[in-house]
């Protein structure tokens, strides 16, 4: 069997391409008679429809819709005019094919097809290299899809590692390495956020009393131990969402988020100063410190300036120290 192709130049004699060559060159083709019956199938379609050569042979001469469902154009009459075509296998409509319908002399038709979703078709229909034409770039395309997936996988994991490193660097930049509390920079950020929000909050500024004596008489290891213990007390006496910062030396700030009640804020401050008035044991010695606090309550919708809050807390702390240390002095926010 052979199919005659109309030459573009009438002066050139018609060339005949044996069907066996077309079977190999375009493994996804359908040849139709003028009556719309199947007269030939590419190797791959033969395998997909028939399963074996005998069954494929038996499909020859059967109507087009025995093997295929046409999606575009609407019917065979339109298809016979030639042009873009889209269809599926009748018995396995998962994988649409699209291509071109080429009218042949005498009303016959040649459909050259390709799968729309190639990787899915290759996977589900178990296609091999032999299912594609020799000059077809399908296998190269599949190679590239797989190689690109490997490359983008590497890029993704690099990005993940960089992201992790960045998060860690950021965390380190905001943390006081000795106590694990936030540092001054982190406090400035948190305070700015609180001041910009409508919610009220309380700020407690704490100075340790007699910390210098501990350092001088028992050494820096004792001093460090005391600072770590203070951090532990602050953590235990506040809620998870509060901001605890060490500003350096023996200065601490506690930011109580959403705290609108002066009595409750004062209770937190008192619990902290009371606990810090107890001796802290260190290697058989007792480190006797204490803490003085200045407490400012910023009411809701006050939108205070951060520097003003810190200044007023400092003034309250000074008052606490003058009043004999070991206590917290609370002052109202002065707009």
């Amino acid at each position, binding site marked *: 069997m052979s199919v005659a192709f109309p030459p573009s130049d009438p002066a050139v004699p018609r060339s005949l391409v044996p069907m066996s060559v077309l079977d190999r060159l375009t493994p996804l083709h359908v040849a139709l008679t003028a009556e719309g019956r199947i007269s030939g199938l590419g190797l791959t379609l033969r395998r997909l429809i028939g399963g074996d050569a005998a069954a494929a042979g038996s499909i020859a001469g059967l109507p087009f819709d025995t093997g295929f469902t046409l999606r575009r154009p609407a019917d065979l009459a339109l298809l016979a005019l030639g042009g873009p075509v889209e269809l599926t296998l009748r018995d396995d409509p998962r994988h649409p094919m699209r291509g071109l319908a080429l009218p042949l002399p005498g009303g016959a038709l040649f459909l050259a097809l390709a799968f729309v979703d190639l990787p899915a078709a290759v996977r589900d229909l178990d*296609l*091999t290299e*032999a299912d594609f034409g020799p000059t077809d770039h399908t296998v190269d395309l599949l190679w*590239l899809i*797989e190689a690109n997936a490997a490359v983008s996988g590497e890029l993704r994991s690099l990005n993940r590692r960089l992201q992790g490193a960045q998060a860690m660097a950021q965390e380190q930049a905001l943390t006081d390495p000795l106590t694990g509390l936030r540092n001054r920079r982190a406090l400035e950020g948190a305070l700015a956020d609180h001041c910009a929000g409508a919610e009220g909050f309380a700020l407690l500024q704490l100075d340790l009393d007699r910390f210098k004596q501990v350092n001088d008489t028992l050494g820096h290891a004792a001093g460090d131990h005391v600072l770590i213990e203070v951090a532990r007390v602050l953590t235990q006496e506040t809620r998870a969402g509060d901001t605890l910062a060490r500003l350096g030396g023996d200065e601490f700030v506690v930011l109580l988020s959403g705290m609108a009640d002066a009595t409750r804020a004062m209770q937190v401050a008192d619990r902290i100063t009371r606990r810090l008035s107890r001796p802290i044991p260190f290697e058989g010695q007792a480190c006797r410190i204490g803490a003085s606090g200045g407490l400012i309550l910023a009411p809701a919708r006050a939108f205070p300036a951060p520097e003003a809050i810190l200044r007023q807390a400092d003034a309250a702390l000074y008052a606490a120290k003058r009043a004999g240390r070991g206590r917290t002095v609370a002052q109202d926010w002065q707009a």
Partner: protein
Amino acid sequence: MSGFGKRGRAVHGLILRAIQCFLRDIWGAAFWQAVADDLRLPAQGFEAMLTYDPALGPAVLDRAAARLNRSRDSLLEDMGTYLVSHPRRDGVRRLLRFGGAGFADFLHSLDHLPGRVRLAVPDLALPSLRVQALAPDSFRLTVGTPGDGLAAPVLAAPVLAVPVTMVLVGLIRAMADDHGALVLIEAEGDTSLRIDVLDGQHASARDFRLAAPA
């Protein structure tokens, strides 16, 4: 280390990463760590998508060879085998199996390998590879230098900086196994290999389907 890239004298991280994975997967994480410590490499090792000082590849290989009391060549050959046959590197095996249905098809596909690799990783310039059939079952593979050959020279591309011929010996032998072929491979100098297929169907080929495994 991006400065090496700008001068066009950097080695692609993929190469160094492959060496790192090879040493780690075959001799263990502690062995890799010891090599990395000897050379004061960054703690996390090499990143596949960055570029590095080209001296690092030979330095890592020589350090590992010294610790193992092996020659660099035999280490490189093992690395070629590792790239194809280690369970963790199945992606490489699959990409090479795309070369064709049989072992001879695979050998001929090596001609196009540097070009194909460039499609996926444009800045990874492999040396040109030329396969000649001397007889139906006898082939010669000639290894060029990165960026030479028929493809347009890739200026300022990171160079390989690792001798590749011995890697190919191990890699081709492992691919022959994969195709079920029994072969004899011999290095002819630094840039040429002779491959004799003794039995093309010595064993059954390992399974390969075009569709990527889920």
